[in-house]
């Protein structure tokens, strides 16, 4: 970006501005899209592919925030130290510096555009719905969870005293259909870097693709009444073989009986509030 | 008056564009309707002020070189004190409590509101208290 002598007046400021913008924007863009080895800034590398994308975006945002935060706090500290009162003289009554004001309007706009593009790219990854055979229905109710599996007998139900375990295979796209039977709940697994509301009357669908086996801790995040604090569940990620074994364990006669009992519990939970509702609406009409 | 009008009209214009973009993009009606009426809430007073600004000369407060003398004279009538805001407030309080504790609270509530309305009008007609 060498300036020729013929450059019209005003161009130096413009190019300086552009260079500054690039200096700010490039590292943010580069990091958020490539994901090199940077500190996690308090977040953790997730155990799902989508969570990992969000983690890289987090790193990018954090680098930007750290640079801008350090710069601004540095300016404040410098001003506070350098311009403390030294006498009763009245300083120069500067009120405007238009080029400077334009610079600190334009650079933030450029940063915002970069952040937005990075956001959209990550968002498309996180919200992608690839075709898959594994489909789990998660049902939230006051105060527990029920997980049923499409075309399978398998089921897991539990409330505050016995948190249910959602079993899912590793390295596979798993479609989750989330809904609620009563109030708004929140499906949140910390290690997956993901959460979604369970809304009554809405089927919320998303895909989880776990990269690691193990037991993960899940919890309701949206206030749902008295026992909101202890509305836990667990997600158990197992190998494909273990997953198949677990599924088929519900096809034996005993397994079927357990599943039927659990289904009955879930059905009761799901319909527990409905008669009250109809009664009230009938009474009111 | 013109600057006041312009602020509201520009805000309204921005809201209008935002509303059009949002509504056509999302097809979500609740937000679209609220933004539409937000637009109206800016354009309505904005166009009223604009209409007025075309029909009156610049006021002393719009004139950058106005002297304090130019503002001398009658400004407005300001009441010294009045009990009726308090009575009206207490009436509203009782009416809201009637929503919770039973409609019998409406009796004192409406009584206070009617008293405040009649009394306030009478006070204004008398020329107010000092």
């Amino acid at each position, binding site marked *: 970006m060498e300036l020729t002598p013929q450059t019209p007046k005003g161009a130096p400021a413009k190019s300086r501005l552009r260079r500054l913008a690039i200096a700010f924007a490039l590292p943010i863009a580069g990091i958020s899209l490539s994901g090199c080895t940077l500190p996690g800034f308090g977040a953790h590398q997730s155990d799902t592919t989508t969570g990992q994308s969000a983690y890289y975006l987090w790193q990018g945002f954090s680098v930007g925030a750290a640079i801008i935060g350090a710069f601004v706090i540095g300016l404040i500290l410098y001003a506070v130290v350098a311009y403390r009162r030294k006498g009763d003289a009245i300083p120069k009554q500067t009120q405007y510096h238009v080029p400077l004001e334009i610079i600190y309007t334009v650079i933030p706009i450029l940063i915002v555009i970069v952040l937005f593009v990075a956001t959209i790219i990550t968002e498309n990854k996180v919200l992608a719905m690839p075709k898959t055979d594994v489909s789990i229905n998660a049902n939230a109710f006051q105060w527990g969870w029920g997980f049923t599996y499409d075309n399978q007998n398998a089921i897991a139900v539990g409330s505050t005293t016995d948190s249910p375990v959602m079993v899912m295979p590793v390295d596979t796209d798993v479609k989750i259909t989330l809904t609620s039977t009563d109030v708004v709940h929140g499906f949140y697994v910390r290690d997956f870097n993901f959460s979604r509301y369970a809304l009554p009357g809405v089927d919320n669908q998303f895909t989880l693709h776990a990269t690691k086996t193990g037991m993960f801790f899940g919890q309701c995040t949206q206030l749902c009444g008295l026992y*909101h604090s202890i509305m836990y569940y667990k997600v158990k990620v197992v190998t494909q073989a273990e997953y198949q074994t677990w599924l088929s364990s519900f096809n034996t006669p005993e397994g079927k009986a357990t599943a039927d009992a659990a289904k009955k519990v879930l059905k009761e939970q799901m319909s527990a509030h409905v008669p009250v509702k109809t009664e009230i609406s009938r009474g009111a009409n | 008056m013109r600057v006041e009008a312009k602020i509201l009209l520009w805000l309204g214009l921005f809201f209008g564009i935002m509303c059009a973009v949002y509504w056509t993009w999302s097809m979500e009606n609740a937000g679209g309707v609220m933004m539409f009426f937000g637009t109206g809430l800016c354009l309505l007073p904005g166009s009223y002020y604009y209409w007025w600004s075309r029909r009156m000369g610049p006021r002393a407060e719009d004139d950058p070189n106005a002297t304090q003398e130019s503002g001398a004279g009658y400004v407005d009538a300001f009441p010294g004190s009045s009990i009726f805001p308090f009575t009206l407030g207490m009436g509203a309080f009782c009416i809201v409590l009637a929503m919770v504790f039973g409609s019998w609270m409406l009796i004192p509530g409406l009584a206070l509101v009617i008293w405040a309305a009649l009394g306030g009008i009478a006070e204004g007609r008398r020329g107010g208290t000092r």
Partner: protein
Amino acid sequence: MTTTAHDIQAEAHDHGHSHAEHHGPRGILNWLTTTDHKIIGLSYTITSVIMLVIGGALAEVIRGQLANPDGHLVTMAQYNQLFTMHGSIMIYLFAGPFAFGALANIIVPIQIGAPDMAFPRLNALSYWLYLTGAITMLLGFFVTGGAANFGWVGYAPLSDAIYSPGAGADLWIGGLMLTGFSAIFTGVNICATVFYLRAPGMTLFRMPIFTWNLLVVSILILLAFPVLTAGLIMLYSDRHLGTHIYTVVGGGSPVLWQHIFWFWGHPEVYILALPFFGMVTEIIPVFSKKPVFGYKGMVFATLTIAALSLGVWAHHMFTTGVVLLPFFSIMSLLIAVPTGIKIFNWIGSMWRGQIWFSAAMLFSIGFVVTFLIGGLTGIYLASPPLDFFTHDTYFIVAHFHSVVMALVLGGMAGLYYWGPKITGYMLNERIGKVQFWLLFIGTQVFTIPQYILGLQGMPRRMAIYPNDPQWQDLNTWSSVGAIMIGISTLLFVINIVVSWKKHPAGDNPWDGHTLEWFTTSPPPHHNFFRLPQIRSERPTWDHNHPDAKALAHGKDAH
């Protein structure tokens, strides 16, 4: 140079009688019948500070409960009421009324050289509706079933009659309606005052930034609050009149409540914040002995925030899965731009100044730093993928507490700055500085562990949490910060008692810029005996320092 201000007429039209000497009722009757914006503003200030103390006391109980994973201070049911009422009191009864009812009511008419608000009786009504609304909401603690317990956002269907029966919830709705109307009337009043009662020469672009921000806030109030009131009426009718607006059974939509609530709720965030931005914008230049840097940029930044604020509400609803993510993401990110302009302008106002570190100035600098932290973490939340994993965790709690604690710092700055004008007596500066350091450090000790907790996965609104030693340590630190904040608030009360009627302030203790420093402390009944000529946005400064006018751009090229 100066002349008689206004020939103010009493309604009785007895011409020629000076109205500066006011002979109204005395004592309690004076308080009940007053229409003087200064007394109403003072009532607002005292009431909202009492609400701050009540809300703060609830917060201390919350932090006490959370200091241990298995806290037994309160039950889960009580805990739900506690945080609901803490949030409701702080947002609806403290921050809002303090922002646009308390100092605004006192200062805005004086800053533009007006004798009173445009509608003094309506102004008084606003206060009575606010007071009764506050009492209504607090009555919830004394009814069977306790106060409202569905969070300050009152998400339907949790807030309907099936899941939250009882009078507490109805009192919450009723209290909100009253304070909502109070806010609407204040908005009308400030708009009309600014549009019609400015002194000669006080053009819109000479108004102090504080008044500008209050004007913008008033417009936002008129756009946002009716939506909330309508939403509450629908919620009440769902609860008691058999409608199904927010319930799935009967064909309603729970998400509709969230749309309505946040359509009010996000502009409300700026309704709360902008007045405090304005206070700080008044204070920093005065104590740097410089004009506000980039005055016009500041005004346009405020207007831009207002313009964008109507299109960002659903960033609170990213995880519902039913909103248009890119639209709300870009709109929310863009708000960072005008906010950044403001921060740079504040720094610019200090640059090459003569900074006098009074308590008010310290609080203002503390505000800028704390708000910067809250603002930067807010940018993360404008990005849906990042919001997905921080939503409803303590990260959010920490983010908005950084912001609102910044507002508390700003509010304290405002009280130290304008307190002498309102009461006529100085507050003790030394206690003020101790209070500042306690509040500032306490705020960071309080919020920073919460950011980490949120990233480690602790959801908000938890009465108990899994027994993890690290979580417990972080929570304990946060509780320590809360105690520091509590002590600093006590220091403020002590300061008022200690400095009660001790050191008279004089008309202009800070060498102020704007018209309120031209009149006496406290100002007379209709504010001014005389006014200076208004030739810039710093009439009092220009009057006192005729040789130090603000430089136009170009004369200051370095």
